[in-house]
């Protein structure tokens, strides 16, 4: 096992930490945070796989993919936050509620 594998495995764990939080938390800011952690995990995994040949120069194709991915993830974050603001302005809530919860609250 090399040091690169360490980062690759960290990427895997980060992804599942993020996924778990994304599914479990109802607050929308938390969901966006979790999504960003998931993204970081995927990026680490991709770049880790890109340089799994010991001693060789890393594969530039996944690097380019991750570079564009980071810029896309910030635009995703911003768009998600704009949607969150709209939801909050309309409903006064920043977390997801199901129909069932709404009737419970009444």
């Amino acid at each position, binding site marked *: 096992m090399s040091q690169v594998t360490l980062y690759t495995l960290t990427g895997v764990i980060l992804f599942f930490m993020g996924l778990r939080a994304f599914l479990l938390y109802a607050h929308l*800011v*938390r969901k966006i945070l979790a999504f960003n952690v998931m993204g970081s995990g995927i990026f680490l995994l991709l770049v880790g796989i890109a340089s799994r040949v010991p001693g060789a120069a890393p594969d530039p194709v996944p*690097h380019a993919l991750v*570079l564009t991915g980071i810029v896309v993830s910030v*635009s995703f974050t911003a768009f998600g936050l704009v949607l*969150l*603001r709209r939801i909050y302005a309309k409903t006064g809530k920043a977390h997801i509620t199901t129909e069932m919860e709404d009737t419970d609250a009444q």
Partner: protein
Amino acid sequence: MSTIAWLFDGLLVAALLYLAWSLLSEQDLFKAVVLFIAFGLLMALSWTRLQAPDIALAEAVISAGLSGVLLLDAVGYVQGEKRPASTQSEAVKARRIEPVRTGLNLLALLFCAALIWAVLDLPPLDSGLSSIVQAQMGSAGVTSQITAVLLNFRGYDTLLEVAVLVLAAIGCLTLREADQSAAAAHLREPGMQVLDGMIQLVIPVMLLVSGYLLWAGEHAPGGAFQTGAMLGAAGFLLLLGNRMHFQQIPGWLLRISASLGLSIFLLVAGGIAISGRSLLEYPVSNAGKLIVLLETAISISIGSILIILFAANPPSASSPTIDQATPSEDTTEIGSK
């Protein structure tokens, strides 16, 4: 030496996992976002350890800087949310959710273990892409492999990616709240002269650095994405310090600069297609010039798109996030003693 490297990597990875865990389980959203910013900085450090300086540059500007600012503003915006008090139905609901939660945790652990096994099982073989890129570098028009992949070999991907960014900007502009007059007054507080002074000193340096990154992208880490991120960061600083007002930027200028990258990309692709080649198959003699043109246009576009994304998520006027959160954090710590 290798032991020290292992130690460093181990510490870095442990810190990443710890920060991710605590940012996801932190009760206070403000603290969670601060932890996220720290997480982004450590990610940037990890990229340099993985020999990916291009990604490290983008990550440091974007994850640690721009996303952090956007998230902090959003947390300030939703701070006044009234959570329903814990009632009996809440407890019933919690009990009902519990098996789902356990199931999800188990499922996530299972998949995580499977993926770890798959990663450890990967043969240490080249995917073959690396050697193809190296073989084609002669006709790329640039000497940096990553720039060559982004703007020449995989130009399609970048074209579509720029289109996604333009779509995000259009979405944000459409959905943002129309009345933002209150937001502008937020930072006009006493003592802002220091910030003004810093902005005056830093903005020229930021512009210089973005120009350098654009130039360096030809042969070294750098290029359109890092340049665009740096330009966007300069815009964030100007907007935050009230040196630039989003409402005062003419709409046509914003539209043109945000769509410049995509338009020029499409023009180049169309022009090449008309001249009988396949889409984005640059003539070898002009590849370098075309890439510089595209990089410049894409940088300007990414910079202005980031400014649009920021303007759609303005700092909230009613609840200045930092002002309230910092004292409350400290008083509770002292009081809890």
